[in-house]
């Protein structure tokens, strides 16, 4: 069976990233690698280029990696990483999507065998999903 797309959740908060990964993992049946990069290197609220880079390496199984940032400087830090892709595995894309809904939609689509474009589309379509 072909590898699934991996997912990286980037949050200012380690516990937010881990909790979202836990939820998305449960809903998608625990078959997709969801790596987290939450907080700064010394455990404060913020983002870390080194943590994101490690998470991307962890999530990559050969089918590409989707990165989902939470807010503001998460986006900027991911952009900084993607600007210098030499040390990174093949295909990596960043999703413009709500954090929880995007993570769940992306994980389910990846678990169903969707390719990187399908996983990105699923995450980004989450912007239009209504809760009520």
């Amino acid at each position, binding site marked *: 069976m072909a590898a699934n797309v991996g997912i990286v959740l980037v949050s200012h908060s380690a516990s937010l990233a881990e909790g979202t990964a836990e939820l998305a993992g449960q809903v998608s049946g625990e078959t997709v690698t969801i790596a987290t990069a939450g907080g700064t290197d010394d455990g404060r609220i913020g983002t870390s280029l080194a943590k994101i880079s490690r998470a991307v390496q962890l999530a990559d199984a050969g089918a590409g990696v989707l990165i989902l940032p939470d807010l503001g400087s998460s986006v900027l830090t991911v952009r900084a990483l993607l600007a210098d892709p030499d040390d990174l595995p093949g295909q990596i894309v960043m999703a413009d999507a709500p954090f929880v809904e995007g993570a*769940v939609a992306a994980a389910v689509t990846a678990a169903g065998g969707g390719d990187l474009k399908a996983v990105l589309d699923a995450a980004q379509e989450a912007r239009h*999903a209504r809760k009520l």
Partner: protein
Amino acid sequence: MPESSEATITLAGDLHARPAGALSVAAAKFDAAVEVIVGTSQANAKSVLAVMQLGASSGQQVTIRATGPDAGDAVAAIIGILAGATKAGD
């Protein structure tokens, strides 16, 4: 004309996040287009957020309708998931 298939089940539990996820993961593995129909609402089975938004609950009738080359297998697989997954109560 593409093959189409349809079946209806009465839910034994609410269609919460985990069974919705299992349903969408299964639906994604078929080429057929698959719809989940509850009352007057319908959702693309391959979109977990759309399935969750249906808010289908215990006792409601859910119809699975598929169109495509593997429509029959898709309906059977998803009805099987709904029969099993919604019993757990989560």
